[in-house]
């Protein structure tokens, strides 16, 4: 073993130029990866630090309905002497001030709120927790937004409150990307006086628990989850919160992870071809070692030590680069994402990156399985250059699969990425085979035409390796701009006139007609309205639908999404027809009026909801609708265009089943001018104080602004991927041209003039590049369609300028590299080179 290690060390030192170049490429690939990992860890650490303050407790139990007396008993029993319990309510309502009306998030809290963190108030000392009866603390932004002053009277529902202070800092506010409304605090004792919590109102009720130091928070949470089985009850602890709260940032982080994976793939491909350039020399060394009696495993051990040392060097370099780039990235996060977490790199991540690099290097220099005869030929035969077949790319591609799953934290997205790459390989190999075989059959008379075509079609493994690699590069290079273009198009929401301006919810049954009449009188119309029935799913096909707990070392995004979707109650509606933008994509359309001959009423389920809960057409869902069990059969699956911001629902019932169930209404208005909007908000909230109104335009504006920030981050990563992709192509071209150097010398010895040899080389590489480009770029549209359709349920909006620029760059690079390499090769003494090769 010591000989092997010493040999590896000596080799590492002697080949320092090759080692350094390899390390630099690995470093480039893993720099993006480490940055993305570091962002994710830092987000998590930052959230864990803040989690108690965000929850205002150690454990939070929340539900979008009142807890039943039995549930409250269970909570009290479980907590017993392990800690303190505090109650609170959260809901949206309209706050009317002497100057304006506005949607606010009301938090009705007890004296003990918050258990952790402090509300920083403008007037009082930060330690003050007393909220006097009918006093209200308003978020500081009200001062500017509504010109609200201290001690002014405001109306909230049926009660008048005195503004006794302004909240400067609320530790429970997180860096959520789109806040619907600013917050006001009132005392829980005053809640009833507002009369805002009525039947069917949208609210969240909470039980906040502060545990004693000796209590195990996980055990308590587990016991609570066992006792409170209803998925509508959500239990969070300060340990589990980071997974639940950082959704948008994590999704951005996931996409950055995938972009860094693309960069890693390009660096892997570059490295693969860089190693191909040195491959013959390397293979001959290994062949010599094998012939001297070293077993295959010992040769692999040398290879392994070599990989460990090179990866160590690269890890040191990438860590250094990360530390240098952290201040820049920190700045970017602060400026673009307006968040405040501090980027850190942990030893765990550095060690992990080291292991990943070793794995990647082993994949790149995968098994040496030449037989004795092949070894001898390798040492003896000068023309048997080590051909880079497609199969040699396979270990690299297979290594990318687990990396993709890890980077995207999603089995589905990671596997889609991998399948897409394999799909491109298949398309490229298949189409390359057809085209090369067709070209082979053309009887060219000029040797400058026949020779390159013979070379390409007869050395098919090498040709395919080039086509596949260049094709993957072209495909992935074009994929990112296509995805980005489709995302950008999603952000374009059509003309303002088509969008609703206001969203009204919590409209009581008896208020709906008067509201319509009221708006008519004011000269406005309701654009769309839907009845909303609150329910819980009790059973699926007769099996009780309970909360699922998937906790492990590695929880994917799908697990988290499924857990979130299962743990929520559901809003139902009924309709007499589908709305304009709904499309039935699977199953049969049904009559929208229930007939008594039906065994079960029919429901239509939104596509994503169906997939996330693993439902199928024909499944029977049993709902608890205000204590009454109603079963229904899934008859079809709908796609919903959520980006239109019209009220819509995951589950739509046939008309005639839920009509008698207690329900509220949800309505939207047509486009309103800013003045009309203010007028409607003021007049409706005065006439109907319990109806909440959301300024949907403001919400859309916030969403677009945040999407644009994300788009900026995507552009940055796309640019980095683009550069590394081009680098991969340059190395591929250099490797391909170097592979043919011996042939160039031989053609020269046989009388080939530089002009003719250049023509041969140009035709070969331009033909290969063109084939790769045509196939790679076309397949990128297929992949983009596949990913957008499957993962994001978005239509592909193709963009054609990038592929044209890409084609021009790649063909230009192809021409330039082949010209330069052929020219410089031709200038060398061919006899000496050929003699050396012997």
């Amino acid at each position, binding site marked *: 073993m010591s000989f092997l290690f010493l040999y590896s060390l000596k080799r590492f030192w002697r080949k320092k130029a090759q080692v350094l170049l390899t390390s630099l490429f690995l470093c480039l690939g893993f720099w993006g990866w480490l940055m993305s990992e570091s962002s994710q860890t830092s987000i998590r650490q930052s959230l864990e630090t803040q989690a108690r303050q965000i929850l205002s407790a150690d454990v939070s139990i929340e539900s979008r309905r009142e807890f039943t007396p039995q549930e409250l008993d269970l909570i009290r029993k479980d907590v017993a002497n392990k800690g303190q319990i505090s109650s609170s309510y959260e809901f949206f309502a309209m706050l009317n001030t002497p100057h304006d009306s506005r949607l606010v998030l009301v938090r009705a809290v007890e004296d003990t709120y918050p258990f952790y963190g402090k509300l920083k108030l403008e007037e009082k000392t930060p330690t003050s927790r007393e909220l006097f009866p009918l006093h209200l603390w308003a978020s500081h932004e009200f001062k500017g937004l509504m010109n609200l002053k201290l001690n002014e009277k405001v109306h909230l529902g049926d009660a008048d409150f005195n503004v006794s202070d302004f909240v400067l800092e609320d530790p429970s506010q997180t860096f959520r990307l789109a806040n619907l409304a600013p917050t006001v605090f009132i005392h829980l004792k005053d809640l009833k006086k507002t009369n805002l919590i009525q039947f069917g109102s949208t609210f969240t009720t909470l039980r906040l628990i502060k545990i004693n130091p000796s209590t195990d928070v996980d055990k308590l949470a587990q016991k609570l989850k066992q006792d409170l089985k209803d998925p509508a009850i959500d239990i969070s602890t300060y340990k589990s919160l980071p997974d639940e709260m950082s959704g948008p940032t994590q999704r951005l982080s996931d996409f950055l992870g995938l972009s860094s994976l693309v960069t890693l793939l390009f660096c892997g491909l570059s490295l693969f071809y860089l190693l191909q350039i040195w491959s013959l020399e390397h293979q001959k060394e290994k062949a010599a070692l094998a012939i001297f009696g070293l077993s295959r495993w010992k040769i692999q051990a040398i290879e392994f030590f070599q990989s460990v040392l090179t990866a160590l060097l690269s890890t040191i370099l990438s860590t250094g680069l990360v530390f240098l780039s952290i201040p820049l990235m920190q700045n970017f996060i602060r400026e673009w994402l307006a968040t405040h977490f501090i980027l850190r790199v942990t030893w765990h991540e550095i060690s992990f990156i080291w292991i990943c690099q070793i794995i990647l290097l082993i994949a790149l220099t995968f098994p040496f399985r030449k037989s004795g005869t092949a070894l001898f030929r390798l040492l*003896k*035969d*000068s*023309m*048997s250059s080590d051909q880079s077949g497609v199969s040699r790319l396979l270990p690299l591609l297979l290594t990318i699969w687990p990396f993709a799953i890890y980077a995207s934290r999603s089995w589905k997205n990671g596997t889609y990425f991998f399948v897409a790459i394999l799909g491109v390989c298949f398309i490229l190999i298949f189409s390359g085979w057809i085209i090369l075989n067709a070209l082979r059959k053309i009887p060219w008379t000029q*040797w400058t035409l*026949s*020779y390159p075509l*013979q*070379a390409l079609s*007869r*050395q098919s493994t090498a040709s395919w390796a080039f086509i596949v690699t260049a094709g993957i590069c072209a495909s992935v290079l074009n994929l990112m701009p296509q995805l980005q273009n489709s995302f950008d198009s999603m952000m374009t929401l059509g003309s303002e006139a088509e969008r609703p301006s206001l969203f009204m919810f919590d409209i009581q049954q008896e208020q709906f007609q008067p509201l319509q009449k009221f708006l008519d009188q004011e000269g406005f119309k309701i654009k769309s309205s839907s009845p909303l029935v609150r329910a819980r799913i009790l059973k699926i096909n007769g099996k009780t639908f309970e909360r699922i707990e998937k906790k492990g070392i590695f929880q994917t995004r799908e697990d988290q999404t499924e857990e979130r979707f299962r743990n929520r109650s559901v809003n139902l509606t009924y309709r007499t027809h589908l709305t304009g933008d709904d499309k039935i994509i699977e199953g049969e359309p049904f009559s929208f009026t229930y007939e008594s001959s039906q065994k079960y009423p029919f429901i239509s389920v939104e596509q994503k909801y169906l997939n996330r809960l693993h439902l199928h057409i024909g499944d029977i869902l049993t709902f608890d609708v205000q204590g009454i069990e109603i079963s229904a059969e899934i008859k079809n699956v709908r796609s919903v265009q959520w980006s239109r911001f019209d009220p819509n629902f995951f589950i739509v019932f046939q008309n005639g089943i839920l009509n008698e169930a207690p329900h509220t209404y949800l309505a939207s208005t047509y486009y309103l001018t800013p003045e009309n909007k203010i007028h409607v908000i003021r007049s409706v909230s005065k006439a109907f104080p319990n109806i909440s109104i959301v300024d949907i335009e403001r919400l859309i504006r916030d969403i677009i602004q945040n999407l644009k920030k994300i788009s900026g981050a995507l552009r940055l990563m796309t640019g980095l991927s683009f550069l590394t992709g081009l680098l991969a192509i340059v190395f591929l071209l250099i490797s391909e041209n170097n592979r043919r150097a*011996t*042939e160039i010398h*031989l*053609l*020269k*010895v*046989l*009388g*080939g*003039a*530089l002009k*003719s040899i250049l023509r041969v080389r140009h035709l070969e590489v331009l033909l290969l590049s063109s084939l790769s480009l045509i196939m790679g770029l076309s397949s990128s549209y297929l992949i983009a369609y596949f990913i957008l359709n499957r993962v994001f349920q978005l239509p592909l909006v193709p963009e054609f300028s990038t592929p044209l620029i890409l084609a021009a760059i790649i063909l230009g690079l192809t021409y330039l590299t082949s010209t330069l390499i052929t020219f410089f090769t031709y200038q060398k*003494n*061919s*006899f*000496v080179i*050929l*003699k050396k*090769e*012997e």
Partner: protein
Amino acid sequence: MIEIRNLSKSFKTQQGPLEILKDINFQIPKGKIIAITGHSGSGKSTLLSLLAGLDKPDSGQILIEGRDLFAIPPHKQNDFRAQNISLIFQNYYLIPHLTALENVALPLQILKKASPFEEAQRLLKEVGLEDRMSHYPGELSGGECQRVSIARGLATKPLVLLADEPTGSLDNETGNRVMKLYFDLVRKHNLTSVIVTHNEELAALCDSELKLSQGQIHK
């Protein structure tokens, strides 16, 4: 006839210039086969490279049928070399993706000669490979590869045929058979040939032997 006049060649090394060939003079009459022998590093390959017109001397001339190889304008050098000088290597250097027939026809195609494949067929028959024409180099034995290489060397009907260790990769018996064929063909086509070899037996079969030592020719 090949005439070498005052030929010198040196290479730069870290220790300073290294003189490989020092003012060499000799003549090879037309139709003769000469062997150049010498220890490794004596300058045999450098001399062959200069004879092939693939390298330039520091000074001196190589005259082939009276034409100074290095006085030919650069744009015509390649044509001259292709038409008049052929090379045979120890490791054959056949192009792996071309059949035996295509390998032999290639120099004729490069020179735009008429009927390259018919001529290549004739030459392969001459070297006894009529039944191996459609085989790729990987499917041929070492001796067969070297016979294809000889046929390729003869294809352009050169004035000079240069061979670098032509039996170096072959066993004795095969080497002898291949070289017998080589000598027969060179004499039949009345070519002038230079063979660089370590093989004393092969050198003895040539019309004369020149020994290179310390950059000088010893007859």
